[in-house]
């Protein structure tokens, strides 16, 4: 079962529709117990970093989420759900992220206009499993004002004013800054790739 983490703010409908289109049923999960049973976990996210972390805490989801990700259950964070993997964000100073990956989410410095809205190209740095079989040019839909700086675990970068991490992969833990569920056939293929991932634990 693929669990979509439901913490109140996010819009799960688009993601669920995309997974249904791929022939996969998913379940909205808002309790620690639901996470324990999941074969795969997707953390969608729109809104505010601080509000999201507080909502996860209010539902008691932080610790089980961290435990399952560290145990090797395939995890995909989308947009804010990707940013949640890090220690902190410039969007909500003082608010603690999940801390699965060391680092700080920054503002999009030197961006011409904000938010970064629309279809942008990404440049792969390493062969990413999520990008298997997606033909170039790799274009995806972005909608955000904060981003993960380019770093050692960046599998693909995007440029908007400056470079930031568009795709992240470390073992079974992955994240994308764009919205695959809103990125047409390329996004659907990325989700299909993720759905093939198996737990390593």
């Amino acid at each position, binding site marked *: 079962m693929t669990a979509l983490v439901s913490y109140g703010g996010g819009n799960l409908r688009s993601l669920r*529709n995309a997974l249904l289109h791929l022939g996969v049923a998913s379940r909205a999960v808002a309790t620690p117990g639901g996470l324990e049973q999941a074969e795969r976990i997707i953390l969608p996210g729109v809104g*505010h970093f601080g509000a999201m972390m507080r909502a996860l805490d209010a539902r008691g989801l932080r610790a089980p989420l961290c435990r399952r990700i560290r145990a090797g259950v395939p995890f995909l964070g989308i947009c804010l759900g990707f940013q949640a993997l890090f220690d902190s964000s410039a969007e909500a100073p003082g608010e603690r992220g999940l801390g699965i990956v060391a680092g700080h989410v920054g503002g999009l410095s030197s961006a011409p206009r904000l938010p970064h809205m629309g279809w942008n190209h990404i440049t792969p740095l390493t062969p990413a499993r999520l990008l298997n079989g997606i033909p170039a040019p790799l274009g995806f839909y972005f909608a955000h004002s904060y981003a993960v700086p380019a770093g050692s675990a960046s599998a693909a970068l995007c440029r908007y004013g400056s470079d930031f991490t568009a795709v992240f992969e470390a073992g079974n833990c992955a994240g994308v800054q764009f919205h695959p569920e*809103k990125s047409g056939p390329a996004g659907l293929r990325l989700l299909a790739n993720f759905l093939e991932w198996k737990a390593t634990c």
Partner: protein
Amino acid sequence: MLSRRIIPCLDVAGGRVVKGTRFRNLLDAGDPVALAARYAREGADELAFLDIAATPGGAAMAADLLARVARHIFIPLTAGGGVRSVADARRLLRSGADKVAVNTAAVRRPQLIRELSREFGAQAVVLAIDARRRPEHGGWSVFTHAGHQDAGLDALAWAAEGAALGAGEILLTSMDADGVQTGFDVALVRAVARATRVPIIASGGAGTPAHFAGVLAPGGADAALAASIFHQGRCGIGVLKRHLAAGGLPMRLVE
């Protein structure tokens, strides 16, 4: 590079897509679900889905229609028409919209923009502004209630205020140009782009590919929204985007 966006607009009333001239004389233009699917296939970068009956009639948005569109179409959807509260917006977002557009209700109560932005994030909040040129003193005035009432606001000042309150985009419609296909009001778009730092979606007046090229040139709009030109089949989205790309604009091209 960030692509410029082409956004077909589906004005919906009574479950059908309609299109008028200068906000009047509405004509039937087809089934929204079928049209949305066609536009997505042709390479539309987003779709806008506006319930134009909602504001004058006070009717609630047709969330089920939006849900049917969202089931098979995996590009961003903006929904609007009669959004007055966080609860209205939530209903649209839960139906499958990615962004909500507010217009009349935000003019009446600007704090609505801040409430929506805090709840859903700036990227989900589109401030729709219907603007008309002032014949005597220059500049543009804001109109509400689907273009029926002068709000007594300056369009540039209202755009800047809306962005400061948390709108993540401005959907800027020239009422002078809407439906008459003689070109966008490029001066309006450029003035609003200078007055704000959020992306601008230009609307009203698209009649030829050259109109799009003009309004999407550097310093202008980030996206262009149009209805008649696409509904009437006079310009295919794929053809338009290839034309714009050939002219040097960054576009997302689909096979």
